[in-house]
């Protein structure tokens, strides 16, 4: 069930002009602050413990959920539910960056007189140190920052400094020079990876057992990985608030105990009986109907920005034939897959998910239409009908693979299902030398709210990599690649969004994927909690600053 964010191996930094991402959609009511009872202790369970308790290294949904309210980057995301939550706003920086005309230089100023939780002053040079750590500690997030001038030389050990970052601890000025303009750079500055940490933090190794002092509303006071961690109010957070960081929400509870619990059903029972206040993962399909029916006053479905799809290797038979790929899209029944997910899947047939800028709903292959699919296959008459279907061994995904395997056999293929362990699945299918890479399961959860985060790693022909490949369909459409490069150089205006929507449709006209759904998550709280205040953030999962007791 874990939705481990896969390491993005593609450089997100590309040619762009402009100041990056503007506001994304309308605003909704703020749910994370103000009013109600304050204080108290909250118990949270997760099926998987955060991969690292370290802002530079963590790259999982669980890790980001915990760390978002512990470490504050220069820019951050608004603490709001829905589309408003994907707006980039100033965090430790006074304002949004000043971007040079050529789009290659970003200037920010750190707010004055802020302190980490241990009383150490937060300095401008701590940002440089954080970026250095990304490279020295081999963070999966380092790829996002390789576009900074001198970053590659630093990573390769050719230089002791990253020449593209200059800071002044007296004035708080931070200047970042990019090799090429990058319209997504504001989003990238808002990722956990870029959160400043003091230079006492180990440069080249993780700090899970002794996390760096906090700059957010909570501080992690105890870690017993991979079992529990304790978060308490950051005693120095008032220095951040006093410096004017109004967009960084304050904690409403005094303490949060986060525990790993591998038994989903036990977690459900715990929340029902109020021994657990919040379970990070959705209840399994087995318990979901009961929870929905009996606890509707403290349970709700929540949107998340992701796309589930079947990839098809467009470079080899039979999926190098457009008609075969179209046939698959006609044949798939999103409702069947929705039931596999226990009713938590919003059906789709396009690349971008709802909530992502550029999303514009359309459906090119109405169905399920097995007759149409069989007709297309008869026209294509593929010579090679022996195909391998790949999926991993997590229960939902195994069932998805079994459904897809059966569907392909019904269409006349001789399909063989390969179910491999979840922890090696993406590295296996991401290695293009693995034999029989024909088709299979995958998903994608956004790293930041920009359509380029979907198109570039997953569909750009330049990003068909021999290992750690994410373009599993091995799509290479030069005209679309050029459009992608052109669009990412521009600000995300309505017109650009429309062009991203057209790009989406263009890929689906080629049926490069067979998308079928966007997974919904849940908020399920104990009876002690203030249900109305708590919400799930589109980027960082549950917002712990929204936790409040009744």
């Amino acid at each position, binding site marked *: 069930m874990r939705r481990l964010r896969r390491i993005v191996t593609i450089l997100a930094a590309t040619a762009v002009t402009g100041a990056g991402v503007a506001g994304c959609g309308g605003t909704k009511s703020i749910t994370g602050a103000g009013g109600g009872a304050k204080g108290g202790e909250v118990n949270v369970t997760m099926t998987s413990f955060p991969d690292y308790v370290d802002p530079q290294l963590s790259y999982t949904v669980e890790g980001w959920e915990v760390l978002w309210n512990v470490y504050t980057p220069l820019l951050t995301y608004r603490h709001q539910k829905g589309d408003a939550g994907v707006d980039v706003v100033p965090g430790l920086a006074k304002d949004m960056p000043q971007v040079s005309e050529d789009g290659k230089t970003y200037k920010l100023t750190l707010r004055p007189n802020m302190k980490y939780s241990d009383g150490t002053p937060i300095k401008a040079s701590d940002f440089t140190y954080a970026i250095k750590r990304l490279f020295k500690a081999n963070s999966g997030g380092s790829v996002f920052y390789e576009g900074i001038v001198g970053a590659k030389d630093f990573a390769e050990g050719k230089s002791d400094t990253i020449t593209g970052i200059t800071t002044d601890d007296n004035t708080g000025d931070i200047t970042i020079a990019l090799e090429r303009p990058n319209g997504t750079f504001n989003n990238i500055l808002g990722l956990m990876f870029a959160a400043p940490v003091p230079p006492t933090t180990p440069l080249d190794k993780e700090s899970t057992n002794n996390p760096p002092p906090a700059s957010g509303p909570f501080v992690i006071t105890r870690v017993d990985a991979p079992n529990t961690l304790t978060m308490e109010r950051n005693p120095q957070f008032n220095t951040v608030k006093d410096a004017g960081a109004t967009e960084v929400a304050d904690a409403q509870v005094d303490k949060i105990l986060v525990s790993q619990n591998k038994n989903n059903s036990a977690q459900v029972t715990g929340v029902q009986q109020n021994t657990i206040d919040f379970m990070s993962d959705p209840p399994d*399909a087995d318990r979901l109907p*009961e929870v929905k029916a009996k606890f509707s006053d403290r349970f709700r479905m929540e949107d998340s920005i992701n796309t589930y799809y079947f990839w098809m290797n467009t470079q080899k038979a039979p999926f190098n034939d457009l008609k075969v790929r179209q046939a698959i899209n006609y044949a798939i029944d999103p409702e*069947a897959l929705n*039931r*596999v997910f226990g*009713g938590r899947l919003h059906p789709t047939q396009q690349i971008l998910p709802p909530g992502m800028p550029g999303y514009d709903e359309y459906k090119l292959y109405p169905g399920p239409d097995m007759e149409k699919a069989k007709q297309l296959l008869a026209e294509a008459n593929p010579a090679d009908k022996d195909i391998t279907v790949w999926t991993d061994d997590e229960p939902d995904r195994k069932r998805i693979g079994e459904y897809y395997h*059966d569907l392909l056999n019904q269409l006349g293929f001789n399909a063989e299902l*390969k*179910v491999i362990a979840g922890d090696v699945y993406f590295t296996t299918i991401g290695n293009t030398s693995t034999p029989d890479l024909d088709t299979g399961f995958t998903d994608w959860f956004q790293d930041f709210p920009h359509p380029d985060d979907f198109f570039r790693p997953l569909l750009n022909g330049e990003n068909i990599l021999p290992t750690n490949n994410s373009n599993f369909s091995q799509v290479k459409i030069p005209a679309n690649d050029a459009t992608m490069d052109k669009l990412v150089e521009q600000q995300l205006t309505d017109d650009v969004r429309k062009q991203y929507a057209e790009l989406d449709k263009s890929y689906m006209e080629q049926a490069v994927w067979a998308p079928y759904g966007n997974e919904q998550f849940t908020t399920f709280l104990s009876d002690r909690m203030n249900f109305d205040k708590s919400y799930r953030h589109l980027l960082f999962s549950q917002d712990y600053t929204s936790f409040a007791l009744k």
Partner: protein
Amino acid sequence: MAAPTTEDAAPTADVEGRSPWHLAWARLRRNRIAIGFGVLFLLIAVFCLAAPLWAEYVAHTGPNQNHITDKITIDGRLTNVVSTDGIPIGPGLRGRYLLGADQNGRDVMVRLMYGGRTSIYIGVLAAVITTVLAVVVGMLAGYYRGWVDAVLSRILDVIWAFPVLLLGIALGTTLALGGLSIGGLQITGNSLWIPILIIGLVYVPYMARPVRGEILALREKEFVEAAVAQGKGPLRIMVSELLPNIISTVIVFCTLNIANNMLLESALSFLGAGVRPPNASWGTMIADGYQTIYTAPHLTIVPGLMIVLTVLSLNVFGDGLRDALDPRATIRLER
């Protein structure tokens, strides 16, 4: 158990002309519990062998066919095979979905029958492999002794040193992706031969050791010396003199080994290292079903019950067989 000692007291003329096999069969027939469980096993085997007939003429679906969005009429009402919340229908008195459906809308009865075929098939074939290898290794080690015994025994020790389940998981997960390639022999990762070979291999020491022990004792007997004196070669002595003397032990071991194999297959399949999806075995059915133990307990209970019944029947029948074949057993013929 029947009262002992009557066989010894029986008039000699009554038993003259009856072979040891005949005597064993007579003893076995007296053990009605063993016979009962033997019949139960046969019924289970027949039930499983009838899977294609049931699938074709009653359920009208195959074991791997998904029917997630299909509907079925129950009590005059059209009902989803799998609800919109993902919960499958349960058992009921009807041809299709007699034992309900699983989360992919597959007919549990059909999968149970096909799964049984798979489990029994693996259990029996793995037992044959174990038996053949164990008898060969045990006889060679016991007959030749010396360095042959030392080498073979150490190899067995190495296999023995690994917990059976861990060894099975390690081999199963390794071979699942790339399959097995030995010389010209190619076995794909999804083949049933992968769990058969794994299970067949890991239990070899458990049978080879007792066989070796018996051969070590038997080769010192006078009839072996007589055979050597007659000029019989080692192979002939092993096959014609020693093997018949250990055959009852081997048969009993083999029977009990089938039960152990089926248990190991279920455990490996449950852990994802045995039978590969979407193929059904009782172990994979439990693995698929335990996720819905609250709302669809039949998915776990039904295959679990079949494993219990099959293993119990084989164990009780195997015990009866041992009692019948072993002349030192407490059971004796009554007159």
